[in-house]
C-alpha cells in the first residue's frame, strides 16, 4: 500500500492530467513560487512552468471569472481558492457565471473548470475562515459538487472533476491534507472495499472515480449514516464506539452532493430501517436536510423512526479550541443521534 497524503493525492491527480492535456492550467494564490499555501501544488511550477502554474494576486472575483472565460474559450482551468471561505467575494463569477453559462447561451458555451480548495473549519481560524459551502452551493443547478474524504477519493475524484465538461466545485479540507494511508486513526479495518490510499501506478495509472457514485465506507446492519468529506471520519469514530455497544452502523460517503446517489442511500435505509444524516454545514436548509427529505420521500414506510440530522451547531464558528470542536458534527453527537434514533430497535 502506498502511503500517499491527501495533499499528494490531489497533486498527483493534477500532474497526471496536466501531462496529457496542455489545456489544463492551475491558477490561484501562491500556487507557484510559494509552492502552494498548503503545499498541494508543491513542485508543480518546476514541472509545468510559469505559463501553466500561475500565481494570482488576491483577486478571487478576477481570477475565478478569468477561469470561467478561459473555460468558455476551450481551456480547462483549475482554480484554487486558498480556502472556500474566500470564494464568497467571487460569488457572482462562481455561482452566476460558471454554472449558468451553458443554459443562458442555449448550449453554446459550457464551463469545464474546476474550483477547488479547503472547506470547513481549519484549526481555530474563527468564523470568517471556517465556511462550509456545500449546503449553499449544492442548491445551484449547473454545477457539480464533490467532497472527497480519503486520499484515494481525493485523487480519483479530482481526475474525474478535471475531465468533466461541467463546472466542478471541489471541496477539500485543511484538516485532512496531511492524512495518509490510514487516516488520522486507523479505520482501515472498516473500509468496505479495503482501500484508503490510491492504487499504485502499476496497478492502475488511469484510476478515476466517477461522480454520482456513493461509497459504502463501512458496511453495517443497524443504522445508516449518510455523510461526506471530513465528517466521514467522525462517523467512523462513532462506529468504533457504537460497535462496543453492539450497534453496527453503515457509513455511506455520498462523495458528491451534486449529483447525489440517492439510490445507494435508499437501498441502505431499506436494509437498516434507521437513518442519521451528518454534514458539517449549518442545519437550516442544509445538505443534511435535503437528504433527509429525499429519504422520507422514498422510504417513509421503511423507516422505523424519524431521521436525525447532525450538523455544525447553528452558530458562527468560534475561535476557542474546545468550542470549535464542540460545534462540529463530531463523533459524540453522532453517537447520541444513533442511540436516539435506534432506541426502539
Amino acid at each position, binding site marked *: 500500500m502506498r502511503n500517499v497524503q491527501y495533499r499528494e493525492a490531489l497533486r498527483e491527480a493534477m500532474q497526471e492530467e496536466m501531462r496529457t492535456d496542455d489545456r489544463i*492550467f492551475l491558477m490561484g494564490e501562491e500556487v507557484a513560487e510559494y509552492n502552494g499555501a498548503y503545499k498541494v501544488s508543491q513542485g508543480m*511550477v518546476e514541472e509545468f*512552468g*510559469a*505559463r501553466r502554474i*500561475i500565481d*494570482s*494576486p488576491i*483577486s478571487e*472575483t*478576477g*481570477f*475565478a*471569472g*478569468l*477561469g*470561467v*472565460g*478561459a*473555460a*468558455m*474559450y*476551450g*481551456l480547462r*482551468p483549475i482554480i484554487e481558492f486558498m480556502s472556500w471561505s474566500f470564494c464568497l*467575494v467571487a460569488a*457572482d*463569477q462562481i455561482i*452566476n*457565471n460558471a454554472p449558468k*453559462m*451553458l*443554459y*443562458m*447561451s*442555449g*448550449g*453554446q*458555451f*459550457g464551463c*469545464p473548470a474546476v474550483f477547488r480548495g479547503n472547506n470547513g473549519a481549519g484549526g481555530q481560524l474563527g468564523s470568517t475562515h471556517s465556511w462550509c459551502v456545500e449546503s449553499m452551493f449544492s442548491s445551484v*443547478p*449547473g454545477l*457539480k459538487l464533490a467532497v472527497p474524504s480519503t486520499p484515494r477519493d481525493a485523487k480519483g475524484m479530482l481526475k474525474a472533476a478535471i475531465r*468533466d*465538461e*461541467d463546472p466542478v466545485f471541489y471541496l477539500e479540507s485543511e484538516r485532512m491534507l496531511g492524512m495518509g494511508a490510514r487516516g488520522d486513526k486507523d479505520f482501515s479495518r472498516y473500509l468496505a472495499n479495503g482501500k484508503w490510499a490510491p492504487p499504485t501506478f502499476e496497478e492502475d495509472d488511469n484510476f478515476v472515480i466517477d*461522480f*454520482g457514485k456513493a461509497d459504502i465506507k463501512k458496511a453495517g446492519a443497524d443504522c445508516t449514516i449518510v455523510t461526506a468529506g471530513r465528517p466521514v471520519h467522525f462517523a467512523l469514530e462513532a462506529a468504533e464506539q457504537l460497535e462496543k455497544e453492539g450497534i453496527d452502523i453503515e457509513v455511506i460517503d455520498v462523495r458528491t452532493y451534486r*449529483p447525489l446517489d440517492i439510490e445507494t442511500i435508499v437501498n441502505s435505509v431499506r436494509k437498516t430501517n434507521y437513518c442519521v444524516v451528518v454534514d458539517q454545514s449549518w442545519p437550516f436548509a442544509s445538505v443534511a436536510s435535503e437528504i433527509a427529505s429525499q429519504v422520507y420521500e422514498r422510504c417513509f414506510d421503511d423507516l422505523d423512526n424519524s431521521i436525525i440530522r447532525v450538523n455544525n451547531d447553528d452558530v458562527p464558528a468560534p475561535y476557542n479550541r474546545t468550542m470549535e470542536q464542540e460545534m462540529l458534527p463530531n463523533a459524540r453527537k453522532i453517537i447520541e443521534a444513533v442511540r436516539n434514533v435506534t432506541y426502539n430497535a
Partner: protein
Amino acid sequence: MNEATLLLSKKSEKTFMSSAAQDKAQANQIAPELSNDKLIDMLKSMMQIRRFEERTMQSYMQQKIGGFCHIYIGQEAVAVGSISALKSDDPIVGAYRDHGFALARGMDPKYAMAEMFGKVTGCSKGKGGSMHFFDKEHHMYGGHAIVGGQCPLGTGLAFASQYEKKDNVTLCYLGDGAVNQGAFHEAMNLAAIWNLPIIFVLENNSYSMGTHINRGTAMANDLRAKAEAYGMRYAECDGLDVLDVYTTFKREVDKTRNAKNPQWERGMIPSYKREGEANGPCFMNVKTYRYKGHSMSDPQKYRAKEEVEAKQELDPINRLVNLLIEKNISTQDQIDEFDKAAKAEAQAAVKYANESPDMPQEELFTDIYVNPYGPYKKGELPEMLKGKDLGE
C-alpha cells in the same frame, strides 16, 4: 395596425438626411485604409441595428418581448466601428445592452429577434433573452447582465488566446456604470500584470440608468486615471463618429495584438509605466450617447429633452450618410435602398420570431450540463449554429 405600430412607423419614415455643418466636420476624416465598400458596409450595419431596434421597441410594446430590454439606438457606431477593426475570430464579450454588437458581429437578426420572443429558434434557444445573446460561430461570448461581471470573463478570453499562443485581441465592452464594480478593477489589474491582449471598451453614454457619470464615478472628467492606475494604455474616441471609432480601434487593436505575458519567464519581476505598453492591454473611453431610455420602462426624468436632441443632431448614421454623399461614394437613392433593405430585414426578423415554434417543455431540462445526470438531458445546438463550422 395598432396604435403603437403606427407611431413607430411614422417615426421611422424619417430618412437619414444630410446637414452641411456635419459635412464640414467630417470632410477630412476618411481613413485611408478604408475602402468604399467597407464604408458602405459600416453604414449598412449601423442602419441594420437602428431598424432592428425600432422593431424591438415595437415588439416590446406589443408585449411580444418581456423582461428587461435595453435599446442600442444612438450607440451603433461603437459596435460597428470597433468590430470592423477586428479579425473575424477575435473574441468579444459585453454587457446586457448587447443587440448592437451581436448584429455587428454578424448574427442574423432573425435569431436575435426570436431570442427576445423567447422562441427556441433564438440565438440562446429562448433561455437567455434580450440580455444574454451568445454566438459561438462569430466568437461572441455573450451579453452579461450583472454589471461588471463580464470583465473577468473578457480577461479569461484574452488569457486563453494568449495561453494558446494565438494572436487574437479580445474586446470587452462595459458601460460607464461598470467602472465602479470591483470586478472591473480586478480584471484591469490581471490584464496589466499578465499583459493580456484585451481592450476594455468603455461605452460611455454618460448614464448608468439615471445616474450621471459625474455623480457616480470619481475622476469621471479624467478617466485616463483609471488606466494609469494599472499602467495600461489609454485611448478615447468619439462614439458618435464611426470613422473615429474605427481608426482609433484599428490603431489600438494592432498594438494590443502582440501582447506577450512577461511572467511566462519564471522569476520575472515586471515593472510598469503610467502610459502602459505599446504591446499590451488598453482601456478605451468611447464617448457615446443613448437616445432611448435605459430600458424600455424608463420615463427619463433625469435628463432634459434638449440634451437628447442636441446629441441626436450628431447622429452617427446621418454623419456617415452625409460623408458618403459628399465624397460621391454613395447617392441618396442608394442610401434609401440600404435603408429599405434594413427595414425589410428587421420586419422579416419579427415575422420569423412570430412564426417560430414556442419553446418545448423538454427544453427546460436541457443545456444545464454537458455531461448530464438524473433529470437533465443533453441539448441540441441552437438552430443558428446547425451545420456551422465551430472550429472544434
